[in-house]
């Protein structure tokens, strides 16, 4: 059985279900803890009780006219006032609850029973039955609902019950969809196969395993459908097509209010309020049920997930005596210098420092590698230089000297005019960096035209030149394509071409080859190196790969949890690493691993090194 139908929101909704079974009792217990669900249920119970007990609850006869007390506003005698015939509005409201509640019950029962059976059958038995039911459901969903109801009402002489049953049949389509996708999910679980092999029949499997799992989504869908049913039932009464006056109905009371709207607008409030509160109650119930069901899923997935690594898994490496780190003054020859860059994340417990007082210098035409583990802050550093830190993080300090001008990195808005023209950037996921709705040519053209103000024809020619520059074969053909029609390596070349469009002085490359195949990686790195030489452009290369550093970089900077541990030429780093962490990181390079031995990890290497280091210092 293949699941090939288009993904609907309901599919997505139920697809999040955990492998473990969420018992309906647990779902209802969670639901019962939600105050809004309780309030909504209380209102619905109250309205239902009023509907049934109207003869005992209502203060007056709903049909008793009193022409001496017409159109009164609320008073002690008439808590909600009186209508144009002096009838007590509260009593009419209480009596009028019955047809609405009855109508909802009819529609919801039909929709639930029919939708449940259809969805279950389609999802569980599949094949031709699934196709037939899916067709039927699509058909029902495409019907113009109210117009169909009008036809039914005409034919069946304004019979409200027939109308609400019809509404239920039309509403069963939505229920069936939810039930079908939920059943499909359950059906594909291994334990269902196991149950079948152990001899459990279809009926038993459905009752024991399928039904409990789809209760949650079903309650959500039913609540929302009930809200629709309230609006439909009151709407039909409003149009005078259901229960006939003078019998009280909520919709009919709105109609009566409309007849005296100029001199007694108050009359709109009680009936409208009752309808709105009832719709609201069903809506809130649906929302709470959705939350309660979702909590079950997140709990299920959380149980299955590995424990999150603690923020500092290893003892913090101590700084080593040795060459002092970069000096405080900006390098006079550097094209780009950063001093004291500090990046923090705003969390519930206050600020957390992600990058701490970082300095870096980038010489003209050179490539600087920023190396570190995931989460060391290397990507954030490059984003901070661009002024593009993600929401929730910000630079609190840091100055940048770029081509002689000073910038405050804590004020990202001042960096905007540097982007594209002076600073270019390429990203880790080349495909995700392109807008799927526009062609490759368009991506290049809009940058060229924004920065260059060149006429269109000239910009087009330049776009092709750029694609040639990044060694794309058949650039004219590629220019016409959309991002989804090119490969990842090609997309990264396009990204590079775009970042070169306005001739930046510095290119920031954030793990530009991580997402690519090994062979493509080498090509992209070659390209970057050649471009850097040809255009005398300085490059910052963010990476976790020592091979990339050795091949492409002139200098390297080692980051650990936001702290700069070492900054030196590549030769120095590889031949005589100063910091124990650098040594550990180098030792964890998988390229040096011995065949047949487990891959070294940074944890092992670091522990070993620190032990050695301790021994040395003790000795």
């Amino acid at each position, binding site marked *: 059985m293949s699941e090939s139908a288009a993904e609907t929101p309901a599919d997505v909704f139920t697809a999040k279900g955990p492998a473990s079974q969420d018992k309906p009792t647990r779902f209802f217990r969670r639901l019962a803890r939600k105050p809004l669900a309780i309030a909504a249920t209380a209102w619905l119970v109250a309205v239902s009780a009023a509907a049934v007990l109207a003869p005992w609850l209502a203060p007056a006869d709903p049909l008793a006219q009193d022409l001496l007390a017409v159109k009164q506003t609320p008073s002690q005698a008439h808590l909600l006032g009186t209508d144009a015939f002096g009838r007590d509005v509260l009593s009419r409201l209480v009596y009028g609850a019955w047809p609405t509640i009855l109508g909802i019950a009819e529609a919801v029962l039909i929709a639930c029973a029919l939708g449940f059976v259809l969805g279950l059958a389609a999802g569980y038995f599949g094949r031709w039955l699934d196709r037939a039911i899916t067709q039927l459901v699509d058909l029902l969903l495409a019907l*113009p609902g109210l*117009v169909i109801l*009008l036809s039914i009402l005409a034919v069946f002489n304004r019979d409200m019950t027939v109308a609400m049953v019809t509404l239920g049949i039309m509403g069963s389509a939505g229920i069936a969809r939810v039930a079908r996708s939920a059943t499909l999910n359950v059906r594909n679980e291994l334990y269902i196969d196991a149950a079948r092999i152990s001899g459990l029949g279809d009926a038993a499997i459905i009752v024991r395993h399928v039904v409990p799992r789809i209760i949650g989504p079903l309650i959500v869908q039913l609540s929302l459908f009930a809200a629709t049913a309230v609006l439909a039932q009151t*709407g039909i009464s409003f149009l005078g097509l259901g229960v006939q006056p003078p019998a009280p109905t909520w919709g009919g009371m*709105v109609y009566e209010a*409309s007849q005296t709207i100029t001199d007694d*607008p108050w009359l709109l409030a009680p009936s409208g309020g009752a309808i709105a509160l009832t719709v609201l109650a069903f809506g809130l119930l649906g929302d709470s049920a959705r939350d309660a069901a979702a909590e079950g899923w997140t709990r299920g997935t959380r149980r299955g997930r590995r424990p999150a690594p603690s923020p500092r898994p290893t003892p913090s490496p101590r700084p080593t005596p040795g060459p002092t780190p970069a000096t405080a003054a900006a390098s006079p020859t550097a094209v780009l210098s950063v001093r004291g860059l500090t990046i923090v994340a705003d969390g519930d417990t206050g600020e957390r420092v992600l990058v701490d007082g970082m300095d870096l210098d980038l010489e003209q035409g050179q490539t600087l590698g920023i190396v570190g583990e995931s989460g060391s802050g290397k990507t954030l550093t490059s984003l901070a230089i661009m002024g593009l830190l993600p929401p929730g993080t910000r630079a609190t300090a840091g100055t940048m000297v770029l081509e002689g001008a000073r910038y405050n990195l804590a004020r990202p808005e001042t960096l905007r005019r540097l982007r594209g023209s002076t600073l270019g*950037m390429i*990203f880790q996921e080349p495909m995700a960096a392109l807008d799927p709705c526009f062609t490759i040519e368009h991506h290049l053209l809009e940058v060229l035209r*924004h920065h260059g103000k060149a006429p269109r024809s000239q910009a087009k020619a330049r776009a092709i030149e750029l694609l040639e520059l990044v060694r794309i074969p058949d650039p004219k053909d590629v220019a016409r394509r959309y991002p989804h029609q090119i490969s990842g390596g090609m997309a990264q070349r396009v990204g590079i071409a775009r970042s070169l469009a306005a001739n930046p002085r510095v290119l920031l490359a954030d793990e530009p080859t991580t997402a690519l195949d090994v062979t493509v990686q080498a090509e992209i790195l070659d390209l970057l190196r050649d471009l850097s030489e040809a255009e005398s452009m300085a490059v910052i290369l963010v990476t976790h790969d020592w091979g990339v550093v050795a091949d492409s970089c002139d200098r390297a900077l080692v980051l650990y949890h936001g702290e700069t541990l070492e900054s030196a030429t590549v030769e120095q780093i590889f031949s005589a690493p100063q910091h124990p962490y650098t040594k550990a990181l180098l030792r964890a390079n998988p390229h040096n691993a011995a065949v047949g031995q487990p891959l070294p990890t940074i944890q092992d290497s670091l522990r070993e090194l620190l032990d050695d280091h301790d021994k040395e210092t003790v000795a």
Partner: protein
Amino acid sequence: MLKLILHRLALSVPLLFVVTFLTFLLNALSPGDLAQTILQGQGTPAQVAALRHQIGLDQPLIVQYAAWAGHALHGDLGSSAYTGEQVWDLVVGRMGVTLSIMVGVLIVCLLAGVSLGILSALKGGAIGRVIDVLSLGGLVFPSFWVALVFISFFAVTLQWFPATGYTPFADDPGMWLAGLVLPVLAAGLHSITSVAKQTRDSMSDVMGRDFIRALRATGLPTSTIVVKHALRNASLPLVTVLGLVMVAAITGTVFVEKVFVLPGLGSLAVDATQKFDIYVLQGVTLFFTVLTILINLIVDLSYGWLNPKVRVS
């Protein structure tokens, strides 16, 4: 692309037959019948039988349906049992009112809904809360009730707009527009807020995607990024919601036409229902079914047009 259009059309034709045949079937199942309705229960059995034969009610159902469908294909939808007017003429004559309201709802959704949604996605805060409150209101208060509150406040108290009635565009464009403001807002309140909410959600989603950051890195102005790139990408789910709200607006227009006493197809359908004027009701049902099919078709097509993955492959 052409294949997509043909495929969709092929799917919608059966729907048309199902809906019209269903109304026919109901007609046959109904307790009363057209002959008795026309004679208003006064005729002798012989008279009823004669009339039944005259309008073909004694034929098998499938023959009757084939006859009706054959005529319908030539634009002949029968005539009203009461006034004798041609259903086709009735539908065409009243179409303008209903379509004016629906187009009005669409325009307000696109202008107010989309811009509120963008603002709330970018600025958040107060605008977002206003949208939430309005959309809750649009959800829980039925359109006929909202319409009455609008009349009470904007027409009776403030007297900004006419309370009821319709002025044809040809007579007085200004009055035509003024008369449409309240019906459009009442029929569209829920649609506008649905669109605003969808715009907000899709825009926040798109603004967080990688390519937006990559575009910002190229130095393009924020306005270009938001309007050209983010909105274009956000429009894909938005189109689906626009289709849904337009189908829902059919229901809305039936109610507001009744409340504002507008001579459109919605009020025609309600009157026909009350009087069991079956051919008129069938004609209106046919119109609204075709309209629903068209809306869904336009949604599918614009989805394909907006999404290069569908368009190019």
